[in-house]
C-alpha cells in the first residue's frame, strides 16, 4: 500500500460536460500529492444525511498543482449516486477518500506500450501515458466505445500517442467494431512490449486474450461493485491466480484494481471457481 489514503472535504472548482460524460475538478491536495496513475477515489453521494450508504468509486483522470492540488473525475450517470454527482456545482464540497488501489506498475526501461481504453475507462490512461513518456516509452492508444460521444479523450490521445486508433460499435467514429478487432494490428505495427487496459470486464477479457497471443504482458484495471473502497467489506472480489498457481478471491479495491490480465480469471468473474482457495466443496478446504 503505497501512501496511505486520506479523507477530505474538497471544494469543486469546475464542472463540465465532455460528450456523454461529466467532469468535476475538485481541490484535494492530500490526494493529488499521493496520486499515481491507476489510483481511484471514492465519493460520498447525496450530501449530509444521505440515504446512500456506500461510496462511489471513480478513477482519478488527472491531477494538477493548482490550489495546492486538484483531482479531476470523469463519470457517466448510471444510478442515483452518479445522478446526484452530475448536479454538483462549482463551490459545492465533496467528501473524498483517496488515493485508493494499486496503481499501474511502470516498466523499468523505456519500451513501447499500447494503452487501451473502453468508454470512460480511457480516463485513467492519460496520466499513465504521461508517466510512461517521462520514462522514455513510446505510447500508442486504442480507444473505443459503443458510440462516438462515449469515446473519451480522443483529441488528447491524438496529441500524446505515436498513433491513435478509435473504434465504435456503430461506426460513428473511427473503425466500426471493438478495440479487440484493431488491437492485434496496433501491437504488431508498434512492436509493442506491453499493453495497459481499462474498461468494461468483457473488453479487458478480450484485450488480455490478444496480449497473451502476442506473448506480451498486459495490465488491466478492473471494475467490480464496491461498497467501501478501502478493503473492509469484501464485496468487490474477483478470482485471480496467484504466483503460487492458486486462485484466490481478491479485493479489487486494495489488491487491484490493476492486475496482470493473464492472472484474472475473466470467464469466472461473478462465480466462485471450484478450484479457488476455500471454494465450497473445493479441494483446498
Amino acid at each position, binding site marked *: *500500500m503505497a501512501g*496511505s*489514503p486520506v*479523507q477530505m472535504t474538497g471544494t469543486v472548482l469546475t464542472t463540465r460536460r465532455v460528450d456523454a460524460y461529466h467532469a468535476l475538478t475538485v481541490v484535494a491536495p492530500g490526494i493529488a500529492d499521493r496520486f499515481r496513475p491507476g489510483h481511484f477515489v471514492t465519493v*460520498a453521494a447525496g450530501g449530509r444525511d444521505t*440515504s*446512500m*450508504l*456506500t*461510496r462511489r468509486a471513480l478513477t482519478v483522470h488527472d491531477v494538477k498543482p493548482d490550489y495546492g492540488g486538484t483531482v479531476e473525475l470523469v463519470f457517466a450517470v448510471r444510478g442515483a449516486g452518479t445522478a446526484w454527482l452530475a448536479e454538483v456545482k462549482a463551490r459545492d464540497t465533496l467528501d473524498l*477518500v483517496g488515493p485508493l488501489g494499486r496503481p499501474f506498475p511502470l516498466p523499468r526501461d523505456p519500451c513501447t506500450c499500447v494503452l487501451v481504453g473502453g468508454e470512460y475507462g480511457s480516463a485513467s490512461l492519460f496520466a499513465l501515458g504521461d508517466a510512461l513518456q517521462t520514462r522514455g516509452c513510446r505510447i500508442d492508444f486504442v480507444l473505443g466505445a459503443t458510440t462516438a460521444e462515449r469515446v473519451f479523450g480522443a483529441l488528447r490521445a491524438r496529441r500524446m500517442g505515436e498513433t491513435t486508433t478509435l473504434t465504435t460499435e456503430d461506426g460513428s467514429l473511427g473503425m466500426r467494431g471493438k478495440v479487440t478487432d484493431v488491437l492485434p494490428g496496433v501491437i504488431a505495427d508498434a512492436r509493442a512490449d506491453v499493453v495497459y487496459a481499462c474498461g468494461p470486464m468483457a473488453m479487458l477479457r478480450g484485450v488480455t486474450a490478444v496480449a497473451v497471443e502476442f506473448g506480451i504482458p498486459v495490465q488491466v484495471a478492473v471494475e*467490480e*461493485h*464496491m*461498497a*467501501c473502497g*478501502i*478493503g*473492509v*467489506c*469484501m*464485496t*468487490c*472480489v*474477483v478470482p485471480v491466480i496467484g504466483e503460487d498457481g492458486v486462485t*484466490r*478471491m481478491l479485493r479489487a479495491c*486494495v489488491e487491484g484494481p490493476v492486475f496482470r490480465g493473464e492472472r484474472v480469471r475473466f470467464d469466472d*468473474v*461473478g*462465480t*466462485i471457481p471450484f478450484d*479457488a*482457495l*476455500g*471454494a*465450497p466443496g*473445493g479441494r*483446498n*478446504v
Partner: protein
Amino acid sequence: MELPNPVLTAAGCGGTGRELAQFFDVARLGAFVTRSITMAPRAGRPTPRMAETPSGLLNAVGLQGPGVEAFLERELPWLAERGARTIVSVGGGTVAEFTALSRRLADAPGITAVEVNLSCPNVEDRGRMFARDGSAAAEVVASVRAAIRYDVPVIAKLSPDVADIVAVARSCVDGGADALAMINTPAGMSIDVDAMRPTLAAGAGGLSGPAVRPLAVRCVWQAHAALPGVPIIGMGGVTTGRDALELILAGACAVAVGTATFHDPYACPRILRELEELLTERGFDRLADAVGLAHRPAGTGPRGRTDLEESSL
C-alpha cells in the same frame, strides 16, 4: 471484561484491522471485532455481493476469510502488537466445528473475548441458522464456552429473524454466554427491475445500516428488559453518537459500528467522540448511568433509575 470505551467495530466490517489503521489507531477502539473466523479458508459467495437500498445495504459476502490458521499467524499477532483489544468472532456449520475452532483459539494470546456468530447456517439442520432455535444456539454457545479459557468472555451474537428474541437470548445465557451482541443482519432481498433478476448473485442477503436501527433498538430493549443483568453489545445502523446513545438507552452497554465505516472510515472514533459529548452535555458521569435508562417508568426524571447494573463490558 473491561473496555476503555464502548465503541467497537462490528464483525466483518473492519477487515483485518490493517485497513482501518491507515485512518486511525486501532488501539483507540473499545475493541476490534474480527470478521467471523472459520476453521478452513472460505472463498465466500459470488459477486455481486452488495446492493444499496434506502438507508440500507444488502450483503452476501458468505464469510470469506483465510481460515483460523492464517488468522492466528498473520492477523491476531498484528492486532496484539498494535495494542488493539481483539474480540474474535467465530463461525461454523456444526457444533463440532465451533468446538474445534474454539480449541484452536483457546491458548492463543491476545484474545479479549470470543463472539459466536449464531447466524451461520447449521448444516445438520438443512441450513437453518443456529440463531433461530434456542436449543441449537445454546448448544453452540456451550461448546465454545467449554473450550475457551474461563477468564475470556463468550458473547452470543443473535439474529433478529426469530419469533422470540428473548427466548433465544435466555437459552444462550443458560448455555454459558457472558454477554449478548445484537443484531446481526436480518435477511432481505432486492430485485434489479431492469434486469428483472435479484440484484445479489446469492439472491437474498443480510440487511444493515440505518434501515435496521429500529429493529436493533427493539431487540436490545426486549433483551435488556428480560435479562437486565446481562451485558449487551448493541449494533444495527449506528452512524452517529446519537444513534449509539439510542441503543445504550435501550439497554446496550457498548455499541458496534459496521456499515457506517464503509461510508466514513473514521466512523468509530467519530461516533465515540460524539457519544462522549452527548453524555457530558446530559450530565452523565459514567456511561453505566445511561444504560437502559429509557426503561424507567414514564414521568420519572432522567436520573431516576438507581438500580442500574454497572457496565462490565
